[in-house]
């Protein structure tokens, strides 16, 4: 009987420790498989931020958001990382940073094209900023 308890305890401890190690080493999650918390046009999310930054922060910050909009600008930095800005309201848009695996697909985007981008919303500076973005559908 004691042996059985000991065995059960050991299994539990091993399971617990392995789960801990798994969590500790869990790589950065990709949003490509995540269900979006919000799906909306790029213009709407920007105008919600412009109207009331605090309530928009509470609603969207850290959430997986899927936005549809027109590519206003696409630039590449010195390391070849892409920056895509979607049109929003007036001069404010949505600046998107893509996850490494999504760079190739993002590179096919053209200015003026409509696109659906999913990423994690982080708030607004001059533009609303989304990180870890993936291209959902580039309408081609």
């Amino acid at each position, binding site marked *: 009987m004691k042996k059985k308890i000991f065995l059960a305890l050991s299994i539990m401890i091993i399971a617990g420790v392995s789960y801990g190690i798994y*969590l*500790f*080493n*869990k*790589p*950065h*999650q990709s949003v490509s498989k995540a269900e979006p918390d919000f799906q909306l046009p790029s213009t709407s999310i920007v105008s919600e931020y412009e109207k009331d930054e605090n309530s928009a*922060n509470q609603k969207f*910050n*850290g959430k997986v958001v899927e936005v549809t909009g027109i590519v206003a600008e696409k*630039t590449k*930095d*010195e390391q070849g*990382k892409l*920056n895509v*800005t979607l049109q929003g309201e007036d001069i404010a848009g949505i*600046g998107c*940073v893509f996850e490494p695996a999504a760079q190739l697909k993002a590179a096919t985007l053209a200015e003026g094209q409509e696109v659906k981008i999913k990423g*994690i919303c*982080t*708030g*607004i*500076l*001059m*533009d609303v*900023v989304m*990180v*870890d973005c993936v291209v959902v559908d580039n309408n081609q």
Partner: protein
Amino acid sequence: MKKILFVIALAVTTTATFGQGRFLTKNGKIYFDCTTPSSPEKIDGTNDKATSVIDASTGAIEFALLMKAFVFEKSLMQEHFNENYVESDKFPKATFKGNITNMSSINLSKDGTYPATVKGQMTLHGETKEVTAPGTITVKGGAITAAKSEFKLLLSDFKVEIPSVVADKVAKEAKISVDLTFQPMAAK
């Protein structure tokens, strides 16, 4: 009549030069490293979306970034950073407002990379502190095209607490690298 035209022309050129004096980036890179020799892994994060404006006529520089836009290799580290250390939900932004103290020694009509010192108020985790940082300013074709800086921030200055269990595994001073590439700001 000629005089009026001259005055108008002068006014136009002056405003034009003034309009050219501001430079902007929305894709500034900020990197931080809190690794210590006893850390079990690298503790670092990258933010590719800092916004910054330099006014070359006054040497004023401002920047802002979103804390949640820091990306980490490990998702648990990102979670801890946002929830336990910088409390991103309560304090979503970090900002800096200051001046290039040696703007007069930066010659905008001569291409080159100039040493610069920036001094100003940094707000992080809801705390504001004066920060002085060394760096460089790159001038090309009469425009400021880049700015770089490396400096250290004492976490306790900004009331960012390190739990005692990991006290020797997280650096008390964050090494910060700033790498900004500027575009002339479109005059409104």
